[in-house]
Structure formats: structure tokens, C-alpha cells
């Protein structure tokens, strides 16, 4: 267990820059999530930390020691792959014991540690099976046991749950969180799934085009994103134009706010669940689309030339008809965005 420090790590592949001088610090025992769309460089960064890909420049330190010059086998960094990457010709026990064998750990000690690691992921009974006889979830748990049994300084996860179905993914996500807390391992988790990032992380780093554009604790990042990109990538949001009038920000439907919303630029972020909608024949908005999602109802409301997305609990509320006049009220103060404003026609984002 150790701190991880990256300074100015950059990588280009031919003409494409995968990473622009990325620096980051992960505290001992911290669980950090790298969140970003496909091709943002998050997997490249993970592979560079593991030593599978060589960076063009920059330093990597684990527990204060420089490791970027070392081959992967000398780094003591565990990596859990999206594809599980189990050795198909070895049993579950041999897979988990491989790292210990490579370290020359005596057989009896190794066997005990393999057993403990398999018990940790509830797979003790399957030690003698081959990977192909296991389900996807079981295979990924074997991969997890294989990565933690070597007691790595840092544990890396490269979208480990992406190949699993939704229900299994949620369950394994919870197990993973409990395990990481129990073992206290410093961990970096790569994902493009914002729900996964928020559920697991102590801190989320949002990546875009090879750069870390924003970071923060899940709640802070969700409620008060600084950039439009982070606001849009973490869940749905409305990026709305505001008019400044007498030191107050005026929402498209006329609601006024003082404070932060009024001080910053011309656009604010307001989450669909933070807007209350009530039927009102004299209201500023008109419902133009309704989607029933079971747990919630999502409506698209046109206010002037802006479309606003509103989400309400699905519990017992009447489903509004298209064409209904409604009035809107922001339940919380909208959050200003520091990034460049979007054109009005593209004000709604999902």
C-alpha cells in the first residue's frame, strides 16, 4: 500500500496524442476513478502506470520510488482487465497462484495465500476448475483474487465490469468496494460509466482528449461541476442560458437567483431532478415529450426557444399529456459553468 504520484506523463501514438502531460497524486489507500469517454486516454494512462505501455516522458513514483524505468514484472502493481485475461490453460488456483510462483514463494505458503484470496472472493469451492467453466462474474472475481494475492502497492482496474450484465455489475461493484476498503489498497479504477464512478470512488478524475479536465469527490463533482464537459458526462443536465438583470440571474422561465449563479457567465447547469414542474394553464412551458422510466418520469418542456428536461419521481404522479402548459421552478440554485457557452439551440444536453 502506497501513494502514487505521476508527473508530466505524456504519450503519443503516431500523429495522435493519447495523453498530454498528465500529473496526478493518489493518496495511500485512496480509491480514484478515471472517468471519460472512449478514446480519452484513460486506458493508456492505466497501461503506462502498469508498465505495459512506455510513456514518452514523465515520472511515476510509488511510495516515493521512481518506477517508470522498471519493466511491469518489477513494479508490483496489480491490474484487473476488462477481458478478465485469465490463463485458460490453468486452473483457478493456478491462475491465482501464478504471481506467487513468479515471486518464488514456497509452495505451502503460496497455497495458503491462494486459498485465502479465493475465500475473499467466495470462490474457494471452484479452485480446481478451469476458467472456461466459470461465469463472467466468477472469472472476474478470480482475476481480482489473482491481482490482490500478490499484495500489490497499487491496484488498477481497467473497466472490469463492462462485460457483465447490469445486475451482476451492481453486485460485483459493491463487493469490489467492500474488498478495497477492507484491504486498504491504493486503487485506480478506469470507467466510462458515471454511476460506477460515483458509487466506487473517493475521488473522480474526469478525462477528455488526453487531459484530466476536472476532479473532485463524487457529490461535489455531481452537484457543482466546474466545466460543462464534467456536468454533461456525470449524469444528465440542462445547460441553460441566463439573463443578468439587476445583479440577479434570470432563468428562461423568469425565476430569479442571486449569489453565485448571478456572478458567473451566461450559462448554468441545472439537473433534471432539481426542477419542479406543476400544471399551470398560464405557465411559461409546454410539455413536448414524456418518457416513463419506471422509477421516474422524464418530461421535455419547451420554454421560449429553450428545451428543458425535467425528471420527477414516478411514484404516484400523474403522467402529463403532451401539450400541457406547465410552470417550472428550480428547487436549488443553478450552478454556473465556467466553460464557454453553448449556442442557445443546443442548450439541452443529455
Amino acid at each position: 500500500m502506497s501513494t502514487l504520484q505521476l508527473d508530466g506523463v505524456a504519450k503519443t501514438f503516431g500523429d495522435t496524442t493519447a495523453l498530454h502531460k498528465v500529473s496526478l497524486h493518489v493518496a495511500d489507500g485512496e480509491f480514484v476513478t478515471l472517468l471519460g469517454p472512449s478514446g480519452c486516454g484513460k486506458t493508456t494512462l492505466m497501461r503506462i502506470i502498469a508498465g505495459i505501455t512506455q510513456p514518452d516522458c514523465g515520472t511515476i513514483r510509488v511510495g516515493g520510488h521512481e518506477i517508470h524505468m522498471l519493466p511491469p514484472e518489477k513494479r508490483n502493481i496489480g491490474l484487473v482487465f476488462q477481458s478478465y485475461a485469465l490463463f485458460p490453460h490453468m486452473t483457478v488456483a493456478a491462475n491465482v497462484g501464478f504471481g506467487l510462483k513468479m515471486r518464488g514463494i514456497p509452495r505451502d505458503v503460496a497455497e495458503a495465500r491462494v486459498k485465502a484470496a479465493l475465500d475473499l472472493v467466495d470462490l474457494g469451492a471452484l479452485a480446481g476448475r478451469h476458467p472456461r467453466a466459470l461465469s463472467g462474474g466468477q472469472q472476474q472475481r478470480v482475476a481480482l483474487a489473482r491481482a490482490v494475492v500478490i499484495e500489490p502497492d497499487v491496484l488498477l482496474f481497467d473497466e472490469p465490469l463492462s462485460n457483465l450484465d447490469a445486475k451482476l455489475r451492481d453486485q460485483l461493484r459493491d463487493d469490489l468496494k467492500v474488498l478495497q476498503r477492507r484491504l486498504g489498497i491504493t486503487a485506480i479504477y478506469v470507467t466510462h460509466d458515471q454511476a460506477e464512478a460515483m458509487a466506487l470512488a473517493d475521488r473522480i478524475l474526469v478525462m477528455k482528449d488526453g487531459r484530466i479536465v476536472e476532479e473532485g469527490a463524487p457529490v461535489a463533482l455531481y452537484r457543482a461541476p466546474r466545466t460543462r464537459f464534467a456536468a454533461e458526462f456525470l449524469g444528465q443536465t440542462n445547460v441553460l442560458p441566463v439573463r443578468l438583470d439587476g445583479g440577479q440571474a434570470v432563468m428562461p422561465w423568469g425565476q430569479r437567483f442571486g449569489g453565485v449563479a448571478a456572478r458567473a457567465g451566461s450559462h448554468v447547469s441545472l439537473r433534471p431532478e432539481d426542477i419542479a414542474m406543476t400544471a399551470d394553464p398560464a405557465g411559461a412551458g409546454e410539455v413536448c415529450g414524456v418518457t416513463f422510466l419506471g422509477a421516474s418520469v422524464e418530461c421535455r418542456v419547451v420554454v421560449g426557444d429553450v428545451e428543458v428536461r425535467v425528471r420527477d419521481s414516478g411514484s404516484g404522479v400523474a403522467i402529463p399529456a403532451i401539450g400541457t402548459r406547465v410552470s417550472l421552478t428550480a428547487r436549488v440554485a443553478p450552478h454556473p459553468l465556467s466553460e464557454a457557452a453553448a449556442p442557445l439551440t443546443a442548450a439541452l444536453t443529455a
Partner: protein
Amino acid sequence: MNTRSATAAILILPAGGYLAIFFGLPLLLAFLGGFGLFTRGAETGFTLDHYRTLFGTKSYRDGLWFSTYLAIVPTLVSLALSLPLAVALAQTHPGQKLFNMLYKVPLVVPGIVAAFIVMTMFDRGGLAARVLAPVGIDLPKLVRDQWAVGVIIATAWKAVPFMTLIIGGSLGAINRDILSAARTLGAGPLASFWHIQVPLALPGITAAFLLTFIGGMGAYAVPNLLGPVYPLPLSVHMYVNAFERNNWGLVSAMGTVLSLISIGVLLAYYRATRSMRQSYGGETR
């Protein structure tokens, strides 16, 4: 049920009949010929004389061993060269495309041409001897020598790209993440090679070994040109007995024995890889 069996028989007939007529029948005739039955240019009648001659004559017995030697040794030498070459070719390196093309050149050169190349290079007074003589290196006898070094060189020259191609395909089919996983778990390049790459590429490695081995068993042109005067491989004895002595019965017996050895190796291959193929699941090559 009878209708279904009849339908199945009719459906199998084109492929099965083709195999029976063009593969089964000649093999059966060769097999029977070894026992004096339906022998070309001789009266038919069951006899064990041909096998008695084959196993009772020292030059033929030595020929059988020599054929086996010419199958095993060049194949092992080729394998030892092909494995690292296939691994090296799987890595990205400068000039990869050019090298990938160049190493395959021997594939399109006929065996007889390869034999002449080796002769030109390594025979007494050949190119290699003339180049090395001024620096004081005297090459041992490499062509028509006792250990058939010339045959081994020519066979390996032909077989290495062939085996590399098959093994390279097998290595290339291994998920890169699996190799990366092995490295992060503490395996260096050599340990990954032995513990991960070789076992996972084993179906391809054994297939390449087997095909080269069978080719070596029946090789005629290369051992005849570059091999020692004695022993001669069974393939050369077959030629002599067929076209110079018109003893087709003995030729059939020799052919049958060579085929049986190859079939034996094939069965051993399937037996050895059965458990492996079962435990890998998808890996059935």
C-alpha cells in the same frame, strides 16, 4: 429410421466416395501390395517375404532408422529456430513489414532448389568454405556427411518459415491482455514465454512439428542430393526398388511402414493434445 439411414448414406456418398476412391483405395492397394496381393508387375499371392526382406536386410533396417532420423532431427532444429523467431516477429519493431515478407521467401523456393543452394554454399570448395578459409576456419564436411548436416540445413531452411508461419498464427491468437497480465503478475519475458505463450500456442506448435515430421519421413530429393552414401533413407530405397528392380511388393511394404510411423506420430499427437484441447475449450487447432 431406415429411411433416415439411407438418406444419410446418400448424403455422405459424394464426399465419402471421393475419399474412398482417391485416398482409401490407393492406400489399401499399397497395403495389400506389401503382402504380395494385387502387386504391380507380379503374380498375386499372399506372402510375408517383402516384410522379411525389409526387416532382414541391414541396409533397409538402417534406411528405416535413417528416415526416422531425417524426420526427427531437422524438425527439432527447425522448431528450435522457429519458436524464438515467431515470438520475435510478434513484437513490433522497425522494418517489421519487410522482415515479415523476407522470412517467407524459402516457402516459395522448391526443395530441390534449396538443396542446390546448400550444396553451392556448404560443399567442399563451396562459397562458405571459400569465405571462411582466409580467416583460418576450415569447415567440416557438411554435404554427404555421416550426420546428414547438409540435409538438416536444407530441410530447416525450408521448414523454418513454414513452422514460423503456423506458430506465429497460434501466438498471435493469444489475447494480448493475457500476456500483459502475466507481466504485471511478475513474469519476465522468458517466464511469460514458457508459462503462457508456449502452452497456449501448443496446438499450433505440435501441428507445425507434425507436418514437418511427416514431410521429413518421405523426403527424397534433399537426402538423395545432400545425404550420405550410406545409409540411404527408405524413400531412396523405394525409388531404386521400383524403377531399377521393379520390386513393387517391397516398395509397398516400405511405404506401408513409413506411413504407419507417421500415423503413429499423428495418433500420439492427438492423444497428447486431447486433455489440453479439452481444458482450453475453444483451442482446438
